[in-house]
């Protein structure tokens, strides 16, 4: 292996790592606030990319119906809850109406515009809205369940969302234009600007989340909600809202990863699942609780995957997923420190 080959492998490995990183931090975000190991996180990548592809084709993304129906069911559940708790039903109705109006306006705007930025924003908003809906329908009815139950919920959601993408968009891949088609020449090789965008967004998102949970009161409140649900509730932290918020942010991050990945590999219904799994392996390095460590984990994983495929393309996935075992052993030794972490 010469130097040029190694540089090529490293550059593409790091791009991949950055894509996984966004999913990795979404997983950490959800786990630290709700204790859900969200297997379905990769599907938001698929949905984000395909929604953008629909808008670019000048069609209304079919995800609108999913968000619409899911939102309506959530609203009905919330109204029922409000009636049972003898609270005013005006508040949930007004909230849902406001969110619905914003989403509808964005969708219509994206449908009629040719501006890529607006279309990306609308795709991001629509898919992010799926996050709290999924939370409302699957996790929220089971407060305080054990991790195993929550993992199985995640598996179930993944098994619904994956075929749903096939149903809504069909099996054909769609190409999505890059934000910039250019390539940055670096000596004998080059890097697509799109790859640099992916890396920049990953780094920014990680830093922002890390700062948010470490330094702000709201971030600390969110973390508290997962450590001790009831305690947090007594302190006046709206636990349910915390869960919805974290699912929203996580869906947004993963969808962003999909939007940025789509120009590199096209948008198709199978793209997200493997990205989700690899994001998980990387995030496992940070024990699903530590942002910088998780990002270091996924970036290492991306680079390692790149070199592993070069050495033996048939066994690359085996090598990558086998990484979980040493990571677990290493995590086990440091388990005590992490308990203090959250």
């Amino acid at each position, binding site marked *: 292996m010469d130097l040029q080959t190694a540089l090529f492998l490293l550059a*593409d490995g790091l791009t991949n790592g950055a*894509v996984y990183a966004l999913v990795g931090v979404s997983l950490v975000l959800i786990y630290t606030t709700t204790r859900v190991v969200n297997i379905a996180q990769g599907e938001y990548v698929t949905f984000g990319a395909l929604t953008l592809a629909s808008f670019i084709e000048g069609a209304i993304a079919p995800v609108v119906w999913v968000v619409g129906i899911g939102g309506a069911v959530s609203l009905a559940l919330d109204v029922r809850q409000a009636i049972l708790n003898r609270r005013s039903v005006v508040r949930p109705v007004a909230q849902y109406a406001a969110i619905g109006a914003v989403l509808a306006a964005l969708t219509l705007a994206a449908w009629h515009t040719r501006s890529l930025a607006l279309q990306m924003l609308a795709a991001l908003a629509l898919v992010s809205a799926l996050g709290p809906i999924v939370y409302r329908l699957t996790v929220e009815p089971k407060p305080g369940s054990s991790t195993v139950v929550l993992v199985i919920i995640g598996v179930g959601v993944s098994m619904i969302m994956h075929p749903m993408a096939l149903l809504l968009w069909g099996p054909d*891949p769609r190409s999505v234009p890059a934000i910039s088609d250019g390539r940055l020449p670096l000596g004998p090789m080059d890097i697509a600007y799109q790859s640099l965008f992916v890396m920049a967004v990953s780094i920014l998102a990680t830093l922002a989340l890390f700062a948010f949970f470490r330094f702000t009161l709201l971030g600390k409140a969110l973390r508290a909600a997962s450590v001790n649900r009831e305690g947090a509730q007594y302190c006046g932290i709206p636990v349910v809202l915390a869960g919805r918020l974290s699912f929203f942010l996580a869906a947004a991050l993963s969808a962003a990863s999909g939007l940025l*990945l789509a120009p590199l590999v096209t948008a198709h219904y199978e*793209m997200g699942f*493997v990205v989700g799994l690899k994001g998980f392996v990387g995030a496992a390095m940070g024990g699903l609780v530590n942002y910088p460590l998780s990002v270091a984990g996924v970036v290492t994983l991306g680079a390692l995957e790149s070199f592993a495929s*070069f050495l033996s*393309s*048939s066994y*690359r996935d085996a090598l990558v997923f086998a990484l979980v075992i040493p990571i677990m052993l290493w995590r086990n030794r440091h388990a005590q420190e992490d308990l203090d972490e959250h």
Partner: protein
Amino acid sequence: MKLLRSCMAAVWLVLLVPVAAMADNRPEFRIGTVNSVTGGASAIAAGAVSAIDLLEQKLAADDSLPFKVRFIKYDDGSDPAKAINAVRKLAQEDKVHIVICCTTTPSSMAVNKIVEEEKIPNISLAAAASVIEPASERRFTFKTPITDRLMLDFTLDDMVRKGYRRVAFMGLDDSYGEGGWVEFNALAKKKGIEVVAAERFSRGDTNFTPQALRVARHKPDAVYFHAIPPSAALAHETLKRVGYSGPIYHGGGAPTPAFLSVGKRAVEGAIVGTAALTVHKQLPDAHPLKKAVSDFVKIYDGHYGEGKADMFAAQAYDAVMIPVRAWSKVPAATRGGDLVQARAALRDAIENTRDYHGVIGIFNFSPEDHLGLDSRSTFLVTVKDGRFVLLER
């Protein structure tokens, strides 16, 4: 009022249907179909399901046949176990004369035993040659899709003719890629082509650079891809990016609109193995397949919309039309007689199909060959200005 009217219409329908059925006293030809309407293979089955629905309507309206065709359709959910149950039910309860099963290779392999036990002819829509081989043990199973072996044989001959001796293989790491690799390796050895590298990637991969770098390092005379879009086009693009500039071949999974729309300029010049369907407009009028393919595209696109006709639909179309044609060759007395004898006679009639100009190709079944296609049904095309152009033989 509206409700009343629709009620009346419903009553009329109920009254009319038996009358129409009674008027038609031709004997029934029962075709049982098992497709993967749901499950993992549903995307592959979609074309076949549409083609069979279309033929059901078309054959029902056809008064010229001495029998009426009835379809009994089941879904195996892409699960071989369900396919076995469905075929057994079709053979024993529905008493069909022939089954068309199944979409996938695993399901088709699984039902082979039942088909032989029940002595009922079956036409498989699966890709792998193993479904019908050896023909002496798979007496009742036929298939219509072009095999990888047939296509690769043709493609590798082209490489030999052009003097490419050192060839690299890049394929998917699933059963499709594996099937292609086994055939490629065996045929390359036979033809004296040296396989200098064999790399794998998966459908969901986001990075093809490592494999491409490794292939490019061997400086092969040509590279062969056995994959489907988008990964086929993306890996092709990456291979060019890392500095490989030689000829690039693709297998039968590539010639789809998606390949062109994903690959854009990067796939210009790619040489792709395909069937007549992809290039039927460019075939000379005298070509034996021109009429059959054009007619099929006209009917299918006329029903489902422009550009909808694909290989999966064409395979199913032939899989229905071949037995319908064979059934009309079976003597009327046998057709109306004992079911076991009727099935055996149908099997023999299918095996005796000679020079049938289907949509996929020219079928010549024989006791040794239950695919019945030869290199007259395979074509090589190249990508030029964003479309597939037929290469001269």
